[in-house]
């Protein structure tokens, strides 16, 4: 005679189950299939609305004022598309000597430059085009007009 152990399986609870971060605007998230029906309910998904390559778009935070002239300020969020081909006059995130920096990519004659938009910073000439890595192209800027979360984050991790 085998002994059979009875196991109590807890009854399913009726508490709604929420997935973290998934269906809200994720930093650099991209539309999930569930959001395909979002508009039906009258919701906007900025990812779907604005981003050309949502899956290749990453949000980054700005530190410093080197791009103030382009209306990009410390604390702003940038949407950066890694898949877009960088071209003359694009604001890009570039890798210079292993560090990431946001500058405008400008071509003058045969030379390419990374140009700050603030007289206090100096332009960076790309002497070796192979030495330059474009991390991505900046497509959107999120700037807070009323101090909120982004302002609060300004002095973290810098």
């Amino acid at each position: 005679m085998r002994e059979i152990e009875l196991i109590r399986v807890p009854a399913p609870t009726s508490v709604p189950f929420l997935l973290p971060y998934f269906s809200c605007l994720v930093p650099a998230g991209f539309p999930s299939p569930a959001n395909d029906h979002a508009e039906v309910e009258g919701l906007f998904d900025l990812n779907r609305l604005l981003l050309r390559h949502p899956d290749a778009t990453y949000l980054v935070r700005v530190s410093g004022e080197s791009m103030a002239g382009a209306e990009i300020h410390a604390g702003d969020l940038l949407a950066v598309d890694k898949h877009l081909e960088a071209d003359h006059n694009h604001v890009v995130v570039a890798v210079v000597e292993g560090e990431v920096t946001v500058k405008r990519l400008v071509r003058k004659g045969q030379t390419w430059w990374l140009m700050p938009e603030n007289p206090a910073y100096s332009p960076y000439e790309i002497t070796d085009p192979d030495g330059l890595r474009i991390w991505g192209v900046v497509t959107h800027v999120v700037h807070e007009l009323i101090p909120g979360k982004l302002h609060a984050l300004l002095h973290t991790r810098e």
Partner: protein
Amino acid sequence: MYGLLDCNNFYVSCERVFQPRYEGRPVVVLSNNDGNIISRSAEAKALGLRMGDPYFQVKELLHQHDVAVFSSNYALYGDMSRRVMWYLGQTAPAVEVYSIDEAFLDLAGLEKYHGSLDTFARKIRAGVKSRTGIPTCVGVAPTKTLAKLANRIAKKNPDLGGVLYLDNAERRAWALTQVEVGDVWGIGRQYAAKLAAAGVGTAADLARVPDAWARKHLGGVVGARLVQELQGRPCAGLHPSEDGTLSRQSLSCSRTFGRPLSAFSDVLGAVSAFLSRAAEKLRAQGDTAHVLTVYISKNRFATNVQPPFSRSATLTLPIGPTADTTVLLSYARALLNRLWEPGTVYHKAGVVLDGLEPPGVGQQLTLFAPTPPEPENKREEKTAATGRPALMASLDALNSRFGKGTVRLAAAVPAPGRGGVVGKAHAAPWEGKAQWRSPAFTTRLEDLLIVQ
């Protein structure tokens, strides 16, 4: 034709995308609680560092060569994996996610549209690189086992430019001679030793063994199928990762349904059943999983079916790693909800558990110790993080004694109507040691990459 795409040194590559200063330098990523090496850059491999090396044993060497050390950051890896898989789903007609960093692509009939599959594979590889910054390799061959093998050769030989297409018998024969039998997909250490003793040293030798011999010495039908696949004959029923003989870094379970399904509860039942199997294997090897992926595929040969034919969703478990079927199931259900398109006929589904590690500090230390009785409300909270080891152990014991699937979770029982168990997730302080964890660059506002 099948393609197998996998990401090179995936965890290290993810770290480098957001910290380019580590390009060209040796980098390693450590497992939960900073225990062992689970990912190595090419430079770290060249130093002789091995997978699974305990950190404290190689500490000196790491220091001596200025190796960059990272704690595992599954929030980041899960999100990057999701991006890779999403793009593959948009690009290849049918995708089978195999682990956090690899996927099979069904490339049947694509020459018509893309010319050579070699060119197409290079295009996909370039696409993943430009969208995520992650380098990959692709093997293309008439069977999954050969695609795995081609991928391996592409990885080892930089001259191939990351892609190897075994498009004819000669090239297949050459490829088989390049791979040791122990490195063939589904051949574990025990089989490799047995094969070596029988004089089977390379994949080429293995492809020559008679069917009856394979059946006798390589676990019956699984072995026979494996040999057939090496000979270039695809076997639809091949699931070498599921034979349970290997302790794996990731576990997947996928099936084509017996008949096409269009009711959510039916597909959920299938997903639940696959997940239950995968979780059983997970517990059998004494691990917990950090990352869960669910994918579903439509029948691409049905009329009026629009691509993408496969969709996947990946989640890094917010409560930390678990091996509890009920906890995993509640997340799987939520993921399936995201993937679900009403009015669609599905013919296949799969689940992948990844980021596998033994339970860390702050968790139940042994999976099979009974949970001590606690006040009701506290137990509830603990359950989310550690699961119900006693319940799970009893479940596994019953099933191994009375046969697979004797006792199942309600959701995994194919019954019409409502299936599913909804669990409660509490954030739990399960964290072990993670001294060198990089920020969650893509999933936390506070952690985004900072540009000057």
